[in-house]
């Protein structure tokens, strides 16, 4: 097997007395869909934020495609191909849907110190942005302001923006948060299609989706990895059952 695309070693982060990430090591292989599950407060979003560069870890290393990216700012990591979607929808609400995705394309199309030509009329940016919108089924809504979309559509737009930059790896933070059952099913279908193209790190509360999609699952509790393996192994793991899966029904219901 080749070297992992993302390798995290001994990552640690404390907020005051709270240990958010506790000596966490993780290796993600190229092409796999790796799900991270764990009860609320297990440090899943904190982990994503550290991988993406929004939060600096106290110690530990992060290697992406062989390079140490632990000291790089967020924008550099994004340009290296590490694309992130947010748990709480984070969009440009006052711009159009197409503009949102075009900005994501533009971020990966050279520098933007171009002062004269109309960016909205650049065919390259247009085509790639429309392509990404088409993949998530939002193309008919391209010209609406982003604020006019429903919550479910916002989640799809988040995904389109992550896809738009031709990433090497997707960091998806609860793409199904707040979705109705039907929308969730649509998202699962979409992620299944993306799985063949991208390495994906998926943080998700929806257990049904996780077990349907994941190649491997890592279980976090209080910032620590308590188990990691194929879905069947995780399902069979007594420690995971005790610590988490029973409770997940409750958590899942609360989020549903």
């Amino acid at each position, binding site marked *: 097997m080749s070297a992992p695309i993302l390798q995290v070693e001994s990552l640690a982060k404390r907020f005051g007395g709270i240990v958010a990430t506790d000596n966490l090591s993780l290796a993600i292989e190229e092409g796999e869909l790796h799900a991270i599950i764990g009860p609320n407060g297990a440090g899943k979003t904190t982990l994503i934020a550290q991988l993406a560069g929004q939060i600096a870890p106290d110690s530990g290393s992060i290697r992406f495609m062989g390079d140490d990216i632990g000291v790089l700012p967020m924008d550099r990591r994004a340009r290296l191909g590490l694309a992130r979607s947010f748990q709480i929808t*984070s969009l*440009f609400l006052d*711009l159009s849907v197409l503009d949102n995705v075009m*900005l994501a394309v533009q*971020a990966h199309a050279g520098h*933007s110190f*171009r002062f004269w030509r109309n*960016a*909205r009329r650049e065919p390259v940016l247009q085509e790639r942005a429309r392509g990404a919108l088409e993949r998530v089924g939002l193309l008919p809504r391209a010209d609406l302001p982003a604020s006019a979309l429903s919550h479910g559509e916002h989640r799809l737009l988040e995904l389109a923006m992550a896809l738009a930059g031709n990433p090497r790896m997707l960091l998806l933070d609860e793409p199904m948060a707040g979705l109705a059952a039907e929308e969730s099913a649509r998202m699962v279908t979409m992620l299944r299609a993306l799985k063949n193209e991208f390495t994906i790190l998926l943080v998700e509360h929806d257990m049904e989706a996780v077990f349907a999609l994941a190649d491997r699952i890592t279980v976090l509790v209080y910032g620590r990895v308590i188990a990691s393996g194929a879905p069947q192994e995780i399902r069979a793991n007594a420690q995971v059952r005790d610590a988490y899966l029973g409770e997940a029904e409750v958590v899942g219901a609360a989020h549903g």
Partner: protein
Amino acid sequence: MKKEFDARTIVVVALLIVLALLPVYSVLSGDRFIVTLFTRILILGLAATSLNLILGYGGMMSFGHAVYLGIGGYAVGMLAHEGIYSGFVQWPVALVASALFALVIGALSLRTRGVYFIMITLAFAQMAYYVIAGLARYGGDDGLTIDKRSQFGILNLSNKITLYYICFALLLACIYLVWRLINSRFGMVVQGVRSNELRMRAIGFPTYRYRLVCFVIAGTICGLAGALLANHTDFVSPAMMYWTRSGDLIVMVVLGGMGSTFGPLIGAVALLVLEEALSGITEYWQIILGPLLLLVVLFARGGIDGLLAKVRAKVPA
């Protein structure tokens, strides 16, 4: 055939025609004062247009923008005081000095957000104000009279109408420049940062340098307005960059419409004409102006420009 117009287009076109023909009216009617008033309006409209670039499009609430009026103005005034009258020297110096000053202010202030950003831009402007007020050689507090306007070969800036049209042409050129900028890749980044900076960084933009360049461009354009203002009044004083003047510029932008192409010009015309008209009625004209502004801020978020855009009329074409 019916064609749809919105009131905004009609008002902007009408305003531009009026501005273009104003000197003609002045000559025919013998009203000399109106050209003086409107030269001033055009210059402050230019300053407001530059502020709109960072405030309206970029979401950077600078409370020290008038400092570049002062720097551009003093570049002209100081050079004239030293016997250098060529506009080909004075104006580039005014632009470069404003750009450098904006670079310094921006480099520091753009690392902060919100109230801190407002306070730092204000602090820098006030610092410049007190430094200039302390320069005895250049008149200090009393300001500096300019005995000869910038020399541009055959262009005679001492001719009121020539100066008026120079201001008008530069204003239109800068409005066009800002419009191009805003729709370019650069402008999309600036607007993206206003909308959601964290997201911009997450999709791969090093946002700080884009905001800084935008801040410097705005400062430079305002420096040009300062050079024009010095020529218009034949006088520069620290009051040009006092914080209340920065406040005036903000009022023009908000009144006319933040983030709109012609909004700052509309705002400058509205504010200064109102000021002129109301001060003719009463000494306490600000008592009338204040509530008017309040109404605009409360009920017309897009300013006058935003209000006009909502008014659509079907007219036969």
